[in-house]
């Protein structure tokens, strides 16, 4: 018989996330991966600035919180200082793809042996729903009240497609947290991203398409549907780069 338990790498603290937000699911997938790989005692996490700034309350791991966008640099310092640690960052789209783009691209280009969990919900959540670097064309936000106008604000950044062009990364994948099937796939990708680090394979990033019913102005159910109908067509799911399997086949 299987009993549903809280992963050992997570605390019993109730999260502050809004109803219908998929951060909770993604946290759990990270916790399960860490538990199953047996690395609870040597994992160090880096929280970002954004909705998940308080992630260190929810993980039962050594953790720090980086300045906005700097998580990959902080993770680089942690990993280089103590290569035995398993170091991951957990970042949103504003943090990773806007203010922290330089840190993201260069950690990837260096092939830094860290794991990056990138939660893309196409909006700045914590500050109340502003346009993000990943907001879709036409998407209405607090700072694009008439819909994102590509003539004025350009186009969303496709992080996986961009990073996959680099020689540095070992593993780049995009998954979604909006259905049981997608959540299972997300779990596998996140586990691989951690396993790669354990095996010294280098930079691994998993982008997880996530919902923000509060700032999208939708019910939780409609928000999950919007991931399918609007986000996935723009941000196709899949593995964009995987050199980690070399020599394994």
């Amino acid at each position, binding site marked *: 018989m299987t009993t549903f338990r809280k992963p050992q790498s997570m605390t019993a603290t109730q999260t502050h996330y809004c109803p219908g937000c998929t951060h909770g699911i993604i946290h759990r997938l990270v916790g399960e991966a860490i538990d199953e790989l047996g690395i609870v*005692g040597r994992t160090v996490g880096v929280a970002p600035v954004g909705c998940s700034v308080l992630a260190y309350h929810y993980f039962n791991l*050594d953790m720090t919180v980086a300045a906005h966008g700097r998580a990959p640099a902080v993770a680089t310092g942690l990993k280089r200082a103590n290569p035995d640690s398993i170091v991951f960052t957990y970042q949103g789209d504003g943090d990773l793809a806007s203010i922290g783009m330089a840190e993201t691209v260069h950690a990837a280009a260096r092939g830094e042996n860290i794991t990056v969990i990138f939660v893309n919900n196409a909006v700045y959540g914590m500050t109340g729903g502003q346009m993000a670097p990943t907001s879709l064309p036409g998407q209405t936000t607090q700072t694009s009240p008439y819909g994102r106008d590509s003539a004025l604000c350009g186009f969303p950044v496709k992080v996986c497609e961009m990073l996959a062009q680099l020689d540095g990364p070992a593993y780049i994948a995009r998954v979604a947290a909006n259905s049981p099937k997608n959540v299972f796939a997300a779990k596998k990708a996140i586990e691989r991203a951690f396993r790669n680090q354990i095996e010294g394979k280098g930079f691994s990033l998993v982008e997880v398409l996530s919902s923000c019913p509060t700032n999208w102005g939708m019910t939780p159910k409609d928000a999950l549907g919007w991931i399918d109908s609007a986000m996935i067509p723009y941000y196709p799911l899949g593995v964009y780069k995987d050199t980690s399997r070399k020599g394994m086949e």
Partner: protein
Amino acid sequence: MTEPILMKGNEALAEAAIQAGCRHYFGYPITPQTEIGAYLAKRMPEVGGVFLQAESEVAAIHMVYGASCAGKRAMTSSSSPGISLKSEGLSYLAGSDLPALVVNVQRAGPGLGGIQPSQSDYMQATRGGGHGDFRNIVLAPASVQEMATLTMRGFDLADQYRMTAMILADGTIGQMMEPVSLEPATPLNIAKPWALTGTQGKREKNVVTSLYLSPAELEEKNLTRFARYALVEQRETDFEAFCMDDAEICLVAYGISARVSRSAVSAAREKGIRAGMIRPITLWPFPADALRQEASHVKQFLSVELSMGQMIQDIELAVRCTRPVSLVSRVGGVIPTPQEVLRAIERAAEACA
């Protein structure tokens, strides 16, 4: 006693970091401190350390943040424009009570300014240099030898008080060559039970953060930090007094300005003028008590600095404006000659007579 060797200031500083047990350097190239990176790029691999050229000054200081989180001695170095970029990291290091060593080999500003020596980052360094209430221990070397010894002391102080120690040098001290004795240091071995090394299943988790959403808790954090700063002020203030026993004219100068001022004081003494110098070795904490005591026999203070007048404010505060304090300065990368400073001493002596 090790045999003195001829080294550039920047290189002496870099070797001293190795001697102090630093094995983690993160930096970005900028003149006039590039020798630090170049030296450590060669040297770190020899001692099993990490040299990493970061994508930016910003990234470099956050890498230092990460390595310091892991409990390791870590450093970055830059020059004025780069330190402005690092100011974000300085604030986060302070807010998270992390030790670090940051080097500023100052060049003239503002903006890109120039690449010649300057001391115009005094306020930025001694007031913290980022948002929020915080301080750095600011050490001001005036020789190649001090580039080495103050670097070693800086690492110890940073660990001891869990804060950033900043070496505030200038382009001249960084670039010039002098004999230096690199005594093997015995770094203070301070336990870091707060470090993020993974719980190893043996302890509660550690969290390093500067985020405190409860005002009461954040106030408490600030008060505790400032109580530690008070200890630093009490114990670590350092300066050199030169010809001060009977001085009526007191020059206050640090770094390259102190080298020039020393010559000017000696020349003034030959002319029978009772001049002397207080050379702050720590700029924060500033030797305010020493200056206040000297004010009992000093008639006039001269602040000799390569800025439009930054340290002069600390001197005025120290002597509570009970004595006149005048500024002797050149800026833009120009260094005054000893004759120029001597003329300022003579003018002061005439005014006092």
